[in-house]
């Protein structure tokens, strides 16, 4: 009990933080495009984006493992560029988490952009704002709630990731042993007290974060156009 290892906690927070930051970066243009495109392939892209919602983590993990393998489509160039394998590494875990949590970031953003609509953007354009200007000064502030929801859901979802991590990252202390894996191991080795501590910590943290989100949503209601 005294030698509770907090390493997995910090590793997990770091993984979730980096994953969400990267997802917001690439998810925003994707969500924007999905919200405004009139292309006929939109349902195709939307389905692809939503796949991680319905696939078992083991399926995602399996195919990522195939891609990440040292001879795989992604693993091979990665190994050449960095000298390290993608499998069983923190970088690989970040990539896998991004795939796994993608819909949790893209969908709230897309919904928020769709709710803002074209009206305020057209108004901004007729006031002399270019597209990028209008995006940052009108669309993004109006979609603020979407960003908060996307960030929190993406973060919380990455925290709870288990199956994909196990398939792609294994259980290497300091590199891939995240919270859920550590809890699983404690339970397997019948260290119920430690498992309790980590589980209760995760439970409490998740609850507090969600309470914060709902409280924020009340203070910053969705802006009607």
């Amino acid at each position, binding site marked *: 009990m005294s030698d509770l290892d907090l390493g997995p906690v910090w590793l997990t927070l770091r993984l979730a933080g980096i994953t969400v930051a990267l997802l917001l970066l690439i998810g925003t243009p994707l969500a924007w495009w999905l919200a405004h495109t009139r292309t006929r392939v939109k349902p195709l892209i939307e389905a692809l984006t939503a796949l991680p919602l319905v696939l078992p983590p083991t399926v995602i993990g399996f195919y990522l493992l195939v891609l990440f393998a040292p001879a795989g489509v992604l693993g091979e160039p990665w190994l050449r560029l960095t000298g390290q394998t993608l499998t069983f590494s923190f970088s690989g875990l970040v990539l896998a988490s991004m795939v796994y949590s993608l819909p949790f970031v893209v969908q709230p953003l897309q919904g928020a952009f769709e709710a803002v609509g074209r009206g305020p953007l057209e108004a901004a354009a*007729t006031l002399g704002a270019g597209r990028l200007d*209008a995006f940052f000064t009108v669309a993004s502030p109006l979609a*603020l709630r979407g960003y908060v929801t996307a960030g929190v859901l993406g973060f919380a979802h990455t925290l709870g990731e288990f199956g994909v991590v196990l398939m792609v990252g294994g259980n290497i202390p300091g590199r891939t042993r995240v919270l859920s894996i550590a809890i699983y191991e404690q339970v397997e080795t019948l260290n119920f007290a430690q498992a309790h501590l980590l589980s209760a910590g995760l439970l409490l943290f998740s609850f507090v974060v969600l309470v914060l989100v709902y409280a924020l949503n009340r203070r910053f209601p969705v802006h009607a156009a």
Partner: protein
Amino acid sequence: MSALAFDLAVDRGAFVLRACETLPLAGITAVMGASGSGKSTLLRALAGLEPAARGRVQLGGTLLQDAAAGVCLPPHRRGIGYVFQDARLFAHRGVAGNLRYGLARARPGAAAPNFDDVVAALDLGPLLGRRVAGLSGGERQRVAIARALLANPRLLLLDEPLSALDAQRRAELLPYIRQLPGRFGIPLIYVSHAVEEVAQLAGEVLILAAGRVTARGEVHAVLQRPEAAAVSGRFEAGALLDATLVGQLPEYALTELDLAGQRLVLPHIDAAPGTRLRLHVRARDVALALHRVDAISIRNQLEGRVLRIDAEAAGAHAEVLLDLAAPGAAPTHLRARITREAAAALGLAAGQPVWALVKGVSFDRRETG
């Protein structure tokens, strides 16, 4: 004086807009048309908001869009302001923040409207500290107009800005809009389907029906045409008259006007003698009599001559066009909507002298002279 020249086609399958005009840009030009006639589409195409718009747009010496020349400026580089029917204020900014959004992106130019002037012109001082969410419909549109002005556009388009307001608010806002071209030197194109608004604001009018321009010209002339009546419905059709204020009758809170040498009395109008007023008299508010009628509450009785009688082929009504001016003077037209039966019973015919009994008048203040 600059001009707006456009030759535009917007094809949306079921609806096609095709318009080619050169509008002299001075004061307020009105675009009228029934719902679905293409008014908004035309405005959006001019502003560059309609991706399906093909053709050519030139504002003054600047080519904004021309497929042949490979030019199609995006909306934010056209220098055309737009006031939307639903105001479209930015909810994440307050009133002052919305105004500054336009100001911060103002087109460079020596004659850019000054912030304080615009705020004063639209009476926004008391609203500056307010949030957008609490504003009334009329207040929202005043903020939207000010925001658009502060971006210093070369041309300001107003797309039915008053249509969401009740009659009283509309009447309150019209004077704000009317003063804008003179005060800030920015020409306006004003879209509406309300004859009263157009009559009070515009110098030049363009009428659209089913995506085509069906009539165009000076406001008095165009509003007399059947195309105008088709827009507003017979019920609202009427005549525009220019009158001069001659004096006040404080005892009865009435104001006396001179109309083509005849006397007209209206409820008190707060203006000096000599003020020119534009009156709109709806045809349905005019009754006809063969003689002056003294024992009647309608006091405004004008002498005129019948010019023409347009009877509805199947309906009950006829529209009588009158001239109120003395013989030889420039004609002053008035319209009366009466039943065909009444026209027959009175034996009305072209050239016949009649008395027009006027039940209602709406008016608009104009600069003297």
